[in-house]
């Protein structure tokens, strides 16, 4: 009996594989602030966050790349009576609580935990005032690759010339030092390094690093402590043209103005994303006796095979595609070869067909 299908044996002719695909994502600071005169910055009437696009957002070519927002904990000094001119205080507290609820979770009493600078939720210094960088799924894909994140910030204290002194914020230990006690997946500690940190409140460790925030890999969110701009620096950074420091802007200005002040100091952001590819590889085993003839209408002329002169000649066919079929003979997937592949009774091969999900 002639046949044009060959069965795939369950367990023998297919295997499931998992591959991680990485892409390098560079975001230059001039896109974030400068090149498009803020036409790529979208603000919303609710004022809860600011969206950054890679092109003026009214264009259909624009891609949403990340959001910026800020907030502080209800028990932060910034929410206290010492800051009577607080702007959008409720919204900032709401933002902090929302992010903390999702990224840090709840304690045994059902209360929202606060961000912890070293990931030890039982103790230690909490990050009570923070800026949040929420990278879109378009950029972060399944997760940010551990150990690949770098946020370069201009930390010169003068507002007009921020980039004359740079601080680099990285998760350099992320590839082997990440934490797993978050409900939002794995996260790493962000460390800042740069000469501007000399003379700050915290003495850098032997590698010149100071803890500066947290990076949630699967969530694609970087949490940067506000003290990076005031306290950790030798000289506090001016966050706006009026020369106000971080605490003053965090409390006295809207979330949008805070986002503006952060964008003003972003020099570069880069990381590698990760896409998890689950594949099934089907081993299409073509034995020497298989598929040596064709049902192609040009294969015969008056029913006589055009590739043979007499019956002793070996039949020959040329493969250009592999089709994967269901039990009811419906074509579910197809793979093409780059060039015709000769098949005759003297050859046999295995075509490995990979189907990605």
């Amino acid at each position, binding site marked *: 009996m*002639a*046949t*044009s*299908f060959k*069965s*795939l044996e369950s367990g023998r002719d297919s295997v499931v594989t998992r591959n991680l695909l990485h892409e390098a994502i560079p975001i230059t600071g001039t896109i974030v602030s400068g090149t498009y005169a803020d036409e790529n910055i979208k603000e919303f009437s609710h004022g809860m966050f600011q969206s950054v696009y890679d092109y003026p957002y009214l264009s259909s070519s624009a891609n949403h790349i990340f959001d910026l927002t800020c907030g502080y904990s209800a028990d932060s000094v910034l929410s206290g009576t010492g800051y009577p001119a607080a702007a959008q205080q409720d919204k900032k507290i709401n933002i902090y609580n929302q992010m903390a609820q999702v990224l840090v979770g709840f304690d045994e009493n059902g209360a929202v935990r606060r961000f912890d600078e070293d990931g030890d939720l039982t103790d230690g210094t909490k990050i009570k005032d923070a800026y949040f960088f929420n990278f879109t799924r378009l950029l972060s894909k399944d997760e940010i690759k551990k150990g690949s994140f770098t946020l370069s910030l201009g930390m010169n204290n003068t507002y007009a010339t921020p980039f004359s002194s740079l601080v680099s914020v990285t998760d350099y230990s992320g590839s082997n030092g990440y934490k797993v006690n978050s409900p939002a997946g794995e996260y790493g500690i962000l460390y800042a390094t740069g000469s501007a940190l000399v003379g700050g409140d915290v003495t850098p460790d032997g590698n010149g690093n100071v803890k500066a925030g947290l990076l949630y890999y699967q969530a694609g969110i970087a949490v940067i402590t506000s003290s990076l701009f005031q306290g950790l620096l030798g000289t506090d950074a001016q966050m706006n043209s009026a020369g106000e420091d971080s605490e003053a802007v965090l409390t006295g200005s809207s979330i949008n103005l805070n986002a503006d002040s952060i964008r003003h100091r972003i020099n570069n952001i880069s990381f590698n994303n990760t896409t998890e590819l689950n594949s099934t590889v*089907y081993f*299409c085993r*073509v034995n020497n*006796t*298989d*598929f*040596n*003839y*064709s*049902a*192609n*209408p*040009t*294969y*015969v002329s*008056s*029913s*006589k*095979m*055009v*590739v*043979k002169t007499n*019956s002793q000649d070996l*039949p020959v*066919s*040329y*493969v*250009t*595609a*592999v*089709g*994967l*079929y*269901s*039990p009811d*003979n*419906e*074509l*579910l*997937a*197809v*793979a*093409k070869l*780059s060039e*015709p*592949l000769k*098949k005759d009774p003297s050859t046999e*091969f*295995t075509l*490995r*067909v*990979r*189907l*990605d999900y």
Partner: protein
Amino acid sequence: MGFLDNSGDIILDAVLTDLGRKRLSEGNGRFRITKFALSDDEIDYGLYDKNHPSGSAYYDLNILQTPVLESFTNNMSSMKSRLLSYSRDDLLYLPVILANTNSDAQPFYSSLNTYLVLVDQTTVDALTTDNNSLVAGIFNGFEPQKGLNHIQADQGLDTTELSNEISLADEDDTLVETQYFVQIDNRLGNLRSLTSTQFSPSSIDDDNIATYIFAEADDTGVVSSAATGASSIISGPRGSRIQFKIAASLDTKTSTFLFDQIGTPGTSAITSGTKTLNAANYRFIDSTVRISGVSTGYTLDIPIRFVKKTS
């Protein structure tokens, strides 16, 4: 020391067809890959030069240089000609399937080289006063039980080099097709037996293409063995014959929507006996019925035209 040849194992990236995506999204286990087939859609075997002066290594030079297109994701557009496995290497002739359009069988409608399917009573009445007597090539799709016209395709070795006095089954029964897929646009029509028994398709894909499966062993009478002495378009040994009628779908019978949407105004008058349906008075939809041999893989597309009187 030379390197070992590592070209024996080839990895290819597959793409899901539209039907594959649909079944995957259904999540009911219907996305299950259990078999594979190979095809050579782009290959023109006419380029195989058995007389090349430089020898056999050059016979397929032009074929091997054939550029290959990227995958089509429409499941109906790929894998149209599949490669075949036969247990013998010494075959010189392969069977084909041909529409039996001989004048003493089921010829096309005279001038159009297609079959016409009249979809409603109004259209039938425009071309006959007796439902049973439409000229050759015109089917009563409204009431397929009336009239004798139908589609007939024969399978076998279409060559005069072999006698048609011998049966293909006697020559080599592996060349006889005993099971067929028949595909038709389910929006337009469906299949009936010659006695007008209605069939249910085995599947309907995302593009509304219905697939029917008929076998010689089933009791539908659609597939039968082709007798050696019978009239046939096959010149040599005959294998099997498939024949069926086409009924118009409910949509085409009762609505003009599809004729307005994908149809065309008539371009020439249709005549049956003494009656004529003028071009200005009807619309039509051109489609095909695809017949494929399950084991021999040969595929035949038969053109059909659904006709509806509109004024």
